[in-house]
């Protein structure tokens, strides 16, 4: 067995949890009931993946570490998530576009981990890849509807693209041990290009590197997110729920 280094495990787990948290903020507020349910499904998928990965991490670390200690008792500086996961939801176009960007990144990542040298992680990745494909299809369908829908929806998806594009270079640059970063990036670019074309949108503007100011904004958004998520658990640190 060759376990994935803990830093990479945390990067994936934290990304799943933070993204799931953002999606869960829509619960009860979606544009129609069917979408409310669909977004909640994605939130459940990725929070479930975060739990499995934290459990694996905790098991390997020992010392009484648990999934909840990892989720509720670390500050923003210790979180390893890719920055785009923490960006605030914005409107539905921005939420959908973030799901497209992340799911198109996760599909090749999970696929590679599913056949990787870490069998415990592979078991999680097999199921996660199936879920990520469903998420990617759902987000693609909506991106296409927005690009090739009304003038209003096109304006909104174009705005979402310009808002989220600055965080993409850091996502594509994220190294995860034992996986091929360049191949993941190529697959991401090729998939996104197809969706943009079908949506009759301009090519997705991926810059060459992330702006540090954007990274700082995402850290600030993450701090606020964690402040809310961890508030009750930290108020009662000895409690079992």
């Amino acid at each position, binding site marked *: 067995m060759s376990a994935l280094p803990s830093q990479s495990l945390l990067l994936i787990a934290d990304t799943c949890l933070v993204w799931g948290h953002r999606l869960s*903020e829509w619960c009860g507020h979606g544009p129609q009931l069917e979408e*409310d*349910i669909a977004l*909640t499904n994605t939130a459940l998928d990725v929070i479930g993946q*975060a*739990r499995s990965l934290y459990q694996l991490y905790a098991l390997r670390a020992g010392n009484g570490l648990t999934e909840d200690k990892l989720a509720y008792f670390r500050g923003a500086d210790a979180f390893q998530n890719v920055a785009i996961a923490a960006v605030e939801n914005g409107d539905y176009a921005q939420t959908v576009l973030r799901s497209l960007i992340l799911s198109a990144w996760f599909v090749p990542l999970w696929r590679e981990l599913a056949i990787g040298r870490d069998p415990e992680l592979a078991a999680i990745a097999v199921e996660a890849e199936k879920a990520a494909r469903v998420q990617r299809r759902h987000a693609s369908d909506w991106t296409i509807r927005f690009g090739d829908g009304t003038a209003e*929806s096109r304006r909104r998806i174009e705005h979402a693209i310009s808002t989220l594009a600055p965080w993409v270079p850091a996502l594509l640059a994220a190294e995860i041990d034992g996986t091929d970063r360049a191949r993941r990036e190529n697959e991401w670019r090729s998939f996104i290009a197809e969706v943009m074309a079908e949506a009759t949108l301009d090519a997705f503007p991926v810059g060459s590197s992330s702006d540090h100011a954007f990274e700082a904004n995402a850290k600030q958004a993450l701090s606020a997110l964690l402040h809310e998520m961890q508030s009750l658990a930290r108020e009662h640190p000895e*409690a079992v*729920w």
Partner: protein
Amino acid sequence: MYTQAIDTDPTSRNSPTSHASVAEDVFLARIAQDEKIEPQDWMPEAYRKTLVRQISQHAHSEVVGMLPEGGWITRAPSLRRKEILLAKVQDEGGHGLYLYSAAETLGVSREQLIDALHSGKAKYSSIFNYETKTWADIGTIGWLVDGAAIMNQVPLCRCSYGPYARAMIRICKEESFHQRQGFDIVRALCEGTPEQKAMAQESLNRWWWPTLMMFGPHDSDSTHTGQASAYGIKRISNDDLRQKFVDVTVAQAEFLGLSIPDPALRWNAERGHYDFGKIDWDEFWRVVNGQGPCNEARMHDRISAFEEGRWVRDAASAHAAKRAARAVARAGALEAA
């Protein structure tokens, strides 16, 4: 979750026997034989209206009911509780969908029903106009509110209208899970630190009486009950269901070590039931009529979600129309070739 059925539509108060047609006699005979009425069957207008009102109130209650608990998803104190709560609130959205679909079989559209909710013409369960101030409220809602919902809903699985009865079978299975997860949250609090136990008691103190109000007015004050019973829509009266709920819940509270906030509560051996104190019906009607702690906030959230989602729905329709037009053009081009 469930809505107390409040008769707000005067047309539904017509007695079913006031229409002495042959068709109505056949209809009532089928109800008497416990046959299911299906969408294509003839039905009296009062029956249809009663069902539309009750099913849509129920659907609205599910959807508005997502809000009080939804606010705690992002603050759930463990990942396990977060996942369960998320799944539970999602179920409620699903129940709303089944029920809007069941109502649509009676010739109304989801849009019409949502318009009626947003304009204030349609009601939803007043229990959702109370605040969820603490995490314990999430447990108490599952334990008491969903517990009361199950009492109300299980008889509806046998209601005379087929699509509603079938929707209720699935809903009841899920509500049973909701009730158990709520009880489990409260159990964990009661077995936890003194602060956690106090949180559970304080929550029970606030939710007990509003939960008893969920069963609706006393039978003597409910014009709706008699008619709904004649139509095979309502099987057990408000007071009987409320009594059953109290009898079951007292033992659960004792098991948890919690006190029910009612000094008049005592076992009546002669009746074989618990006696309990007087319900504050003024509070009930205040909340039903829009003056509860959260009526305004709940409607604001629902209307905002709907209005802010309009451009999304419009985009989906516009894109579908464009695709259809392109498919027609392609087929035409092929034919010409």
